[in-house]
């Protein structure tokens, strides 16, 4: 495999965002994934979300584990630092990176094997630690990179390409994230760009542990009849609870939603999430109700998508640890080293 840089050419008429960047400036190297892989659509949604949010690309750090999904950070935000780590351990690396510099935006990209199998422990603990991040699982129900074995999110009874039936019950990462204390929990589908782009934007503006489970069919190993993560299956069983709009910094509200259907959630930093409710009984601020609803619809054979839970006044790990405002990686000798006098006093206490 070789690296294919994209030509640096930018169309003179290309639209730029508020900070002068074109959409192109948020792209990365050319993808080497299979043509039609759901993961590429998610990369495109991330590019679009960052462009629309006017983020300086270098202020985002991308971390991932190992898998086809975990390779994708090379294919978006080429001006950002990235870390392609070890299988299932992205959450701990991201936690450390976040502690070192609280001022960057952290994007964790993982797969269902990466997060629900080998990395389930780290997934769980970084959710309960409330690390300020966007954590996306590109969920195809299989291990793509190792050629199609079932992952832990594969549904019981799902059929593999070779005809083998999965006898084990699936792990629903959304249910887990809700239970573990994530403060923003959503599910989407790589084929639903209209839903996914605002979801990624909302997750980025959320200060806290934001989790998106994005169903992302694997065209090579999991897109056949009998698969419950195929494009057709997900389209047929998708039950969206809401449609979302993100307004950063209380800008003018322009979305044309009919009154009565719209619910506004003001987040910590003043950004507004506007949810057009599709399921009337659904309240995304009620964690217990969210868990119940999720289970009910699952029992009815539906895959619930949309913003399932958001805690507007979330606190993150830095709040809990009471760290200084200055990023820890910028503190110097003066701030860190107590010096010789303090050491003399320390010695005196040891005699």
């Amino acid at each position, binding site marked *: 495999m070789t690296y294919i840089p994209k030509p640096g050419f930018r169309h003179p008429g290309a639209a730029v965002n508020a900070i002068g960047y074109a959409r192109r400036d948020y792209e990365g190297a050319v993808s080497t994934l299979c043509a039609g892989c759901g993961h590429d659509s998610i990369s495109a949604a991330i590019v679009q979300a960052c462009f629309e949010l006017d983020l300086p690309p*270098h202020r985002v750090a991308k971390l991932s584990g190992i898998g086809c999904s975990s390779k994708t950070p090379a294919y978006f935000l080429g001006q950002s*630092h990235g*870390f392609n780590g*070890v299988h299932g351990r992205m959450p701990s690396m991201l936690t450390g990176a976040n502690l070192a510099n609280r001022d960057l935006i952290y994007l964790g990209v993982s797969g269902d094997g990466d997060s629900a199998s080998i990395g389930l422990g780290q997934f769980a*603990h970084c959710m309960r630690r409330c690390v300020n991040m966007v954590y996306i699982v590109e969920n195809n129900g299989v291990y793509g990179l190792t050629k199609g074995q079932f992952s832990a999110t594969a549904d019981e009874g799902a059929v593999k390409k070779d005809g083998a039936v999965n006898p084990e019950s699936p792990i629903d990462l959304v249910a887990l994230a809700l239970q573990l204390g994530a403060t923003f929990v959503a599910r989407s589908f790589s084929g639903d760009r209209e839903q996914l782009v605002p979801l990624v934007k909302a997750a980025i503006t959320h200060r806290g542990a934001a989790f998106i489970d994005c169903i992302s069919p694997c065209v090579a190993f999991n897109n056949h009849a009998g698969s419950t993560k195929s494009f057709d299956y997900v389209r047929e069983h998708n039950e969206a609870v809401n449609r979302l709009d993100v307004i950063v910094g209380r800008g003018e509200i322009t979305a044309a939603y009919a009154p009565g259907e719209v619910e506004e959630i003001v987040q910590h930093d003043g950004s507004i999430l506007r949810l057009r409710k599709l399921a009337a009984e659904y309240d995304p601020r009620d964690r217990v109700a969210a868990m119940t609803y999720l289970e009910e619809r699952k029992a009815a054979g539906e895959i619930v998508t949309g913003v399932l839970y958001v805690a507007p006044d979330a606190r993150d790990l830095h709040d809990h640890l009471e760290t*200084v405002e200055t990023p*820890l990686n910028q*503190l110097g*000798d003066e701030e860190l080293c107590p010096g010789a006098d303090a050491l003399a006093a320390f010695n005196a206490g040891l005699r």
Partner: protein
Amino acid sequence: MNAINDFVVRFANVNGSGSASANRLFARAILRMGVPVSARNIFPSNIQGLPTWFEVRVSEAGHRARRGGADLVVAMNPQTWEQDVAAIEPGGYLLYDSTKPLPASKFRTDVTVIGVPLTELCRSASWEAREHQILKNVAYVGALSALLDIDVAELDRLISEQFRGKARLVAPNLEALRMGREYALAHTPCPIGLRVARSSAAGDRVLLEGDSAAALGCVYGGATVAAWYPITPSTALAEAFGRYCRRYRVDPGTGRHRYAIVQAEDELAAIGVVVGAAWNGARAFTATSGPGISLMQEFIGLAYFAEVPAVIFDVQRGGPSTGMPTRTQQADLLSCAYASHGDTKHVLLFPEDPRETFEFAALAFDLADRLQTPIFVMMDLDIGMNEWLCAPLAWDDARRMDRGKVMAAAELEAGKPFARYRDVDGDGIPYRTYPGTHPTRGSFTSRGTTKDPQARYSEDGPVYVGNMQRLLRKFETAKRLVPEPVQRAAARPTRHGVIYFGSTAAAMLEAVEILERQGILLDAMRVRAFPFHESVRQFIAAHDRVFTVEQNRDGQLRMLLINEDGVDPSRLVPVLHYDGTPITARFIAREIASRFQVVGAVASGG
């Protein structure tokens, strides 16, 4: 037996009986009299109930190692009575709780037996019942003060200092001390043959544990992120870091913290947090022991290849996980030196005592940043959890953190070329940038080895080999940066040498003196780091035979010498101690002397 300022007292206690603080009180009072002491805890993996020993060595000459044997045993544990009585040197002393009479068969005739009815004394006092157990320990310290002629005013002062702010506890402790002391004075001719006499030999030295010293070194070295998972004997290190951070690292204006500590879910996560933080420009460390090192292997390899600075403290204990968690060993050298899969080699530092642990802890962060690689500080339980008499800790206020080759925004802006994995200076060390530095320059994606010098994805063979060769050059550079060995020449030229490292140092220096008195002359070299400095090979080449003294079964340092420096194995004679107790001078001297007898080279001096 007659000795002034030169004897060993062993306390045999039951774990969880509160004896540790009384025993430390005893050691500190002697230090306050200016006499060098060192103290060792030998304890089980248990919170309550199993036997535990505390050994205090009083040594005017300043010997800090375990000597071996005991001159006075304070036998407070019926379970270990036989072995404790047997450990007393002929002519020595036994102090025991004589509340319940024991048959004569329980005693030795060549030992002076001193009975103090500690339980009964405590019963007669007005304390609450739950305090009896603890105060019984203070009472034997009182008795010892009379028997050994320890200045009781020092004990009084120490008790007042210890319970500062808890005045209610001072009176019963002082009373217990007095009771024990007065009983001994009334019933035994005091002092006995062993005596403490005021001295100036201890000078300004301090009594300090290595775990605390390492933690303080991390504070001084600028560590801001710590991630750990509890494991003996490293737990105290992480906990001390928290304590010192609360003391030294709270922003005075806002009360907020200039540090972040994560008690991770396991060691995999602990090292992951460290790698992530260090990649992002913070100084980060984890503290663990052998089992944790095993779990961290994959990440350590990633850090090596992605060239991420990370500091790892390995407070070594006996392996494996259900091994000897509360016993000391130096048996993780190989698992750290070659940690992870693929071709890896790592820098190890071997501090000899808590003072050097402090220094090496701070230094480790400079080395990690300079070399952009994991640095292991190889402590052991003996250094980590015991109080050692050390020169006072020192710090030069002119010293600044060496953050290594980090390209800043201004340099990138000025057009300085940047390629993450290119060797521009010929020392194998490339430049790095912190994430978020510059809008359009200096970003890269870190991964293992599938990369070219620009950090772009590549699986090209020659590119891979080029990178691996550069890593070897970097390892060569490390030899020049790590602490040099310390040498001690014998009184006269000799063909025999000895190489040792870490906590063996104290016992080794004493053994060299013992052997010298027997006419066996050894040049000694204390190795302080891996990779080995050039002088190590020269030292070996300059001697016919070099003993390698280690606290493990397989001679792991010897293997590293053979493997990395191409030393002829027949020249390196292993002397190995690995029963989990700290190595003693007597053991080393006996082992080395026996090899001379075999060869018949005693007293040749050459």
